C-alpha cells in the first residue's frame, strides 16, 4: 500500500493526575494498517496515552482524532467511541463468571444489540480467528494465560474496531506462552488492523512494527522506523534505555 491515511492523530496531548504530569505534549500519527510501537521506561506515560485513546481517561488538553472525528470533544457518546477502539490489557481482564464465548458475546449483545444467535456466531468466528474454536465453552480459570489473552483479543475484535490498543499484552505471560499471542497480533497486522502496542518485545517490534516511539517523562523523545530507533538511535536517552532493556 502506498498511501496510508492517518486514522489516528494525536495532537499536543496533555494529561495530569492531580499534580503528576503524565503526558506533556504528545503528537503522533498512525496510518491505517500500521503498527505503532510505544516503548519507554516505567512511568513514562505509555498506558496513560493508550487510555486516553479510548477515553478511559480524559486528557487535560490536546486533541485525538480517530478517523477524522475528534474524540476529545466534550459532548460525545463515549460508549460509541470506545467500542470503535479495542483495548487489550496486561492482565487480560476476562470476566471470570463467563465462558470464553460469553466474554466475547457480552458487548455484542448489550452494546450492539445483536440477537443471541448472531452474537454467538460472531463470537465463534472471532475465537476461531485467534485459534480457540475448541475452547469456546471454557471459563477463564480453565485457560492458560496465553489462551486468556487471545480470548481478550477476540472480545475486542468482535466489535470490529478501527484501532486496537495493546497495553503490555504479553508481560504477564510465561515466556513459552508469549509466542502464541504475538502470532495472533502479527496475523492481525497482516489483516490490515491498525494497532498501537506498548510492549517490551523488541524483537517483535523490529519484525512487525512500522513505527517505534520512545517516550520518557510524558514526552516523545524519539520516533521513527524500527531499524532507525533500534540500530541508530539519535537521542542519548534512547540509547541508554535500549541498552538497559536488552541487558
Amino acid at each position, binding site marked *: 500500500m502506498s498511501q496510508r491515511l492517518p486514522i489516528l492523530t494525536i495532537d499536543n496531548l496533555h494529561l495530569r493526575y492531580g499534580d503528576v504530569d503524565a503526558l506533556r505534549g504528545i503528537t503522533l500519527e498512525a496510518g491505517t494498517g500500521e503498527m505503532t510501537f510505544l516503548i519507554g521506561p516505567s512511568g513514562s506515560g505509555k498506558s496513560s496515552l493508550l487510555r486516553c485513546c479510548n477515553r*478511559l481517561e480524559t486528557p487535560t488538553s490536546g486533541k485525538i482524532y480517530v478517523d477524522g472525528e475528534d474524540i476529545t470533544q466534550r459532548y460525545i457518546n463515549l*460508549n460509541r467511541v470506545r467500542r470503535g477502539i*479495542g*483495548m487489550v*490489557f496486561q492482565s487480560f*481482564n476476562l470476566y471470570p463468571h463467563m465462558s470464553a464465548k460469553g466474554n466475547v458475546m*457480552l458487548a455484542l449483545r448489550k*452494546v450492539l444489540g445483536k440477537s443471541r444467535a448472531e452474537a454467538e456466531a460472531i463470537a465463534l468466528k472471532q475465537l476461531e480467528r485467534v485459534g480457540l474454536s475448541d475452547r469456546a465453552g471454557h471459563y477463564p480459570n480453565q485457560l492458560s494465560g496465553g489462551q486468556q489473552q487471545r480470548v481478550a483479543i477476540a472480545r475486542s475484535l468482535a466489535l470490529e474496531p478501527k484501532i486496537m490498543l495493546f497495553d503490555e499484552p504479553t508481560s504477564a505471560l510465561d515466556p513459552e506462552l508469549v509466542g502464541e499471542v504475538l502470532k495472533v497480533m502479527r496475523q492481525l497486522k497482516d489483516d490490515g488492523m491498525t494497532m498501537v502496542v506498548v510492549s517490551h518485545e523488541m524483537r517483535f517490534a523490529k519484525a512487525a512494527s512500522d513505527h517505534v516511539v520512545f517516550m520518557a517523562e510524558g514526552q516523545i523523545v524519539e520516533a521513527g522506523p524500527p531499524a532507525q530507533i533500534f540500530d541508530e538511535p539519535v537521542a542519548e536517552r534512547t540509547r541508554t534505555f535500549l541498552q538497559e532493556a536488552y541487558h
Partner: protein
Amino acid sequence: MTRFDRFIDTFFKPEVMQQYWPDIVSGLFVTCQIAILVIVSGISLGLALAILRSYGFKVINLPIVIFVDLLRALPPLVLILILYFGLPNLGINLSGFLVLWMVLTLVLAAFAEEIFWAGILSVPEGQWQAARSTGLGRFQTLIYVVIPQAVRMTVAPLTNRTIAITKNTALGMVIGVPELLNQATTAQSFAANATPLMMATIAYLILFIPVVYAGRRLEKAYAWRRH
C-alpha cells in the same frame, strides 16, 4: 407425677396442642409473610443503594452512609417503638404489620448495602476497564460484570445477616402483630402452660432451618466456582 410426666405436661401437653395449633399456624403464616417481604424488599433496597453509591455522587453518598450507619447502630426494637407509638402523635397511623415490615426492611437494607458495597469494591478495576473499553455503560458494567462477581463474595455474610434480621419478626409481638411468638405467648397465658412456646419453637425451626440450609448450599455452590 414423675419428672418425665411433668416435663411432658409443661411443654408438650396434648390438650393444649390440640386447642392452640390453629393459632400457632396462623402466627407461622404471618411470620412467614413478613419474613419473605422483608427479605425481598431489604435485599433489593440494599442492592439499589449500593449501586447508587457506586456512582460516586457526594450529595447522594453522604445520606446513604449516614442512613446505613444509623440503622446498623440502633436496636430495631427502638425504631419499631418510635414509629408505632410516636408517629400517631403526628397524625400518622401505621399498622403494626407495616411498621414491622418497614423497620426490618430498612435494617436489612442497611446491612445489605454495606455487604454489597464491599463486594463491589472487591472487583478489580481491570474488570471495569475491560467492560467500559468495549462500550458498555456504567450501569451495564455493574449489572453484567461487577455485581455477578460481587454477589459471590456476599453470599455468606448476606445469608447470615438475613437470617439474623428476619428472626426479629418476633419483635412484632410488642406492637400487636399477630405473628408466631405473639400467638404463642397469648396462648401460653390463656392456657397457663408453656406448650404453645414449644410449638412456636418448633415452628421457627421449620421456618428457618431450610433458610440456613439453603444459605449453606448457596455458599458451597459459589465457593466451588472460585479459583
